[in-house]
């Protein structure tokens, strides 16, 4: 008994020491989307940041809606999100500073190989969505207020389909991240809207294939936003700036473009100095 | 006899008009007696007479509802001058040695002192061979012996024993009785509760006869067995009272 207590005490002390040692190193907290994490982008990019800047970036991967919430409460230093409308509202409310559009990829409509709604090969996402709505065939929605979810809802709106009424029938709301929702779609042979990065890196596809891509409405812009230090004194302003400067620098942009999943480029860097921001 | 630091014996123990009520029933009624140093006293009486309650009052873990219980030497710290062995003693989950040492540790006795005392108790109680055994793996007789050894380790002036052989076979009973006699001969006052007439005859120097919560006799063992004054005691001797 006494020995066990000793071991536990040692562990606790060790943990606290490890913690304080870590706290001593420079790090920032980045609230980001599940898509950027699940695709493996951060596993590739963050070690480069560490090597280049000596800054450790700790990623908390949640939906865009929750990432914005974390920023609002001051629980993150930088956000990497993809919902233009939500981002602008966030800036408007004064929660963020220095919004920079940094890279994009696109959404793809994925569904079962059998394609019961017959949408395969289409170029118009809204048409495909209305076909799915008309067939009342299973569609898996993240329903987690993420950037992807918000984009999906806009497409339903364009297609003139009322998914709220269909919730629980053919419209399945998972309330989960991209990967978890892909697992549901794979299990139930549902259609779903996915970001290309997660789709490319997803291993449990089963019968799912890519059906619709290339519509301009499927464009998926990612932005960096620094949390407003005027509102949250704990924000690590200097380090955060260092990080966003690096990601938008020519080197950072090239590194983003170099990330590949099975030979396919996942994110396209598109930062324009003095370009669209607030 | 153990003498308290002030050089005064704790005994006699005096009961003055002591009653004990549990719930709405009076379990002990108007007890008046004096327990003095000397030969072993047997508290005799049939089942349900209140023997255990009386011992617990003496021991101090029960308080009387009425009346007064006091030791002659004022300021005596009861726990240090007397000890009790319950009918079903609880063995601590540790070795025999550790069980004997336990009350000594509670009293803050130094390690060296303790070792000497424990060794002496082990020899005197014949538990030497079992010293390292786990207490709970002992037989009933051995456990009873250990319980007595543990109570005796603090060198009490008076030892209260509650039916120490109630659940033992004749051989074990005999061994325990021998141990008790030896302790009594060594100068420790023993008050032993039993309903076993044979045991009372074998051990008693004095008899307290308790019946239905009343103390009916306090007399020498010889006088009691020759012919008690009280009719209930006579009935008990004839085996006409339930044991």
């Amino acid at each position, binding site marked *: *008994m006494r020995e*066990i207590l000793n071991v*536990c005490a040692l*562990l*606790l002390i*060790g*943990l606290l020491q*490890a*913690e304080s040692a*870590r706290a001593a190193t420079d790090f920032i*907290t980045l609230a980001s989307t*599940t898509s950027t*994490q*699940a695709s493996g982008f*951060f*596993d590739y990019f*963050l070690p480069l940041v560490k090597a280049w800047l000596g800054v450790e970036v*700790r*990623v*908390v*991967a949640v939906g865009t809606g929750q990432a914005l919430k974390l920023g609002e*409460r*001051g*629980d993150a230093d930088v956000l990497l999100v993809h919902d233009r409308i939500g981002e602008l509202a966030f800036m408007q409310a004064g929660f963020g500073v220095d919004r920079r559009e940094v890279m994009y990829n696109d959404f793809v409509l994925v569904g079962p190989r059998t394609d019961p709604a017959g949408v395969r090969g289409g170029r118009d996402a809204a048409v495909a969505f209305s076909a799915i709505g008309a067939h009342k065939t299973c569609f898996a929605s993240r329903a987690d207020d993420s950037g992807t979810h918000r984009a999906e809802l806009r497409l339903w709106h364009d297609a003139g389909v009322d998914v709220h009424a269909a919730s629980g029938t053919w419209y399945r709301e998972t309330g*989960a*991240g*991209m*990967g*978890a929702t*892909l*697992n549901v779609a*794979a299990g139930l042979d549902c259609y779903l809207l996915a970001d290309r990065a*997660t789709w490319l*890196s*997803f*291993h*449990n*596809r089963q019968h799912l294939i890519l059906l619709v891509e290339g519509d301009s409405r499927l464009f998926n812009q990612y932005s960096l936003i620094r949390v407003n230090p005027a509102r949250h004194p*704990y924000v690590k302003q200097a380090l955060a700036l260092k990080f966003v400067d690096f990601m938008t620098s020519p080197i950072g942009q090239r590194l983003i473009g170099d990330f590949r999943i099975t030979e396919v480029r996942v994110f396209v860097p598109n930062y324009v100095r003095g370009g669209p921001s607030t | 006899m153990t003498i308290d630091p002030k050089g005064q014996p704790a005994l006699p123990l005096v009961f003055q008009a002591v009653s004990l009520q549990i719930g709405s029933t009076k379990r002990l009624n108007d007890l008046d007696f004096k327990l003095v140093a000397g030969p072993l006293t047997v508290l005799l009486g049939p089942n349900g007479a209140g023997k255990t309650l009386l011992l617990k009052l003496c*021991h101090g*873990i029960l308080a009387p509802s009425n009346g007064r219980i006091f030791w002659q030497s004022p300021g005596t710290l009861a726990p*240090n001058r007397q*000890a*009790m062995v*319950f009918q079903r003693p*609880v063995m*601590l*989950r*540790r*070795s025999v040695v550790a069980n004997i040492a*336990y*009350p000594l540790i*509670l*009293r803050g006795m130094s390690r060296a002192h303790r070792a000497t005392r424990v060794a002496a108790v082990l020899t005197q109680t014949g538990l030497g061979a079992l010293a390292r055994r*786990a*207490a*709970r*793996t002992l037989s009933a007789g051995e456990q009873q012996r250990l319980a007595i050894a*543990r109570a005796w380790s*603090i060198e009490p002036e008076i030892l209260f024993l509650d039916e120490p052989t109630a659940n033992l076979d004749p051989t074990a009973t005999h061994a325990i009785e021998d141990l008790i006699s030896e302790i009594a001969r060594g100068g420790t006052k023993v008050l032993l509760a039993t309903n076993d007439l044979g045991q009372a005859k074998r051990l008693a120097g004095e008899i307290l006869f308790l019946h239905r919560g009343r103390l009916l006799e306090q007399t020498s063992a010889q006088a009691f067995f020759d012919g008690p004054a009280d009719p209930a005691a006579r009935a008990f001797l004839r085996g006409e009272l339930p044991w």
Partner: protein
Amino acid sequence: MLADWAVNEFSEAIDTAWALIRSGDPVLVEIVARSLQVSLSAVFCAGLVGLPLGACLALQPFPGRQILLVVLNAAMGLPPVVVGLLLYLLLSRAGPFGFLGLLFSPTAMVLAQTLIVLPIVAALSRQILANLWEEYRESLQSLGASGWQALGTLLWEGRFRLLTVLMAGFGRAMAEVGAVLIVGGNIAHVTRVMTTTIALETSKGNLALALALGLILIVLALVVNGAVFLMQESGKQSVDDN
């Protein structure tokens, strides 16, 4: 066909698990070590508070004791995510303890697991100590034990059963995912533990890797509980017969 798929998935998972373990995969080792560290720390803290609390509840009548007991028993079934959410609101920079900067740190995870395990430790140890107290009270009083001495004796006499309680707490802490995900954030190399990794790998569709980690978790649970069982058995033989 589904059966075939499942069998393949399982054999693949076991192969993956075995390969990961055999190669001593550094990421795996790190995650397992962090899980153990966080959960053991949590159990240590929960024991430090929960055992005395359980003892107090068992031995010491005080006003509000019954209410506290009911609350503790109810809290045993408290969903960890709720604990996680409450702790998040407290530790968030916008919350009352935001100044500590503990959110998304292993310390926050230890706190969360401590809160989850504490009711279990307190309630179960209370039960054990109350039973022991019933058995021992008279004897300990008779032998001259003061309140604190009696408490120490009871804790020692109940050590094997209390250890089982701590292990039950450890099992719950190790298996918990909801709360540590919320307050830890599943940050790679900082707050990523076995369960959050399993959730992440599952969401990536890496079912084999997720299952491999799951298998390791199961084996760990077996090893820990097996060790406790053996300890208890040997303990019984040496000092106990029941």
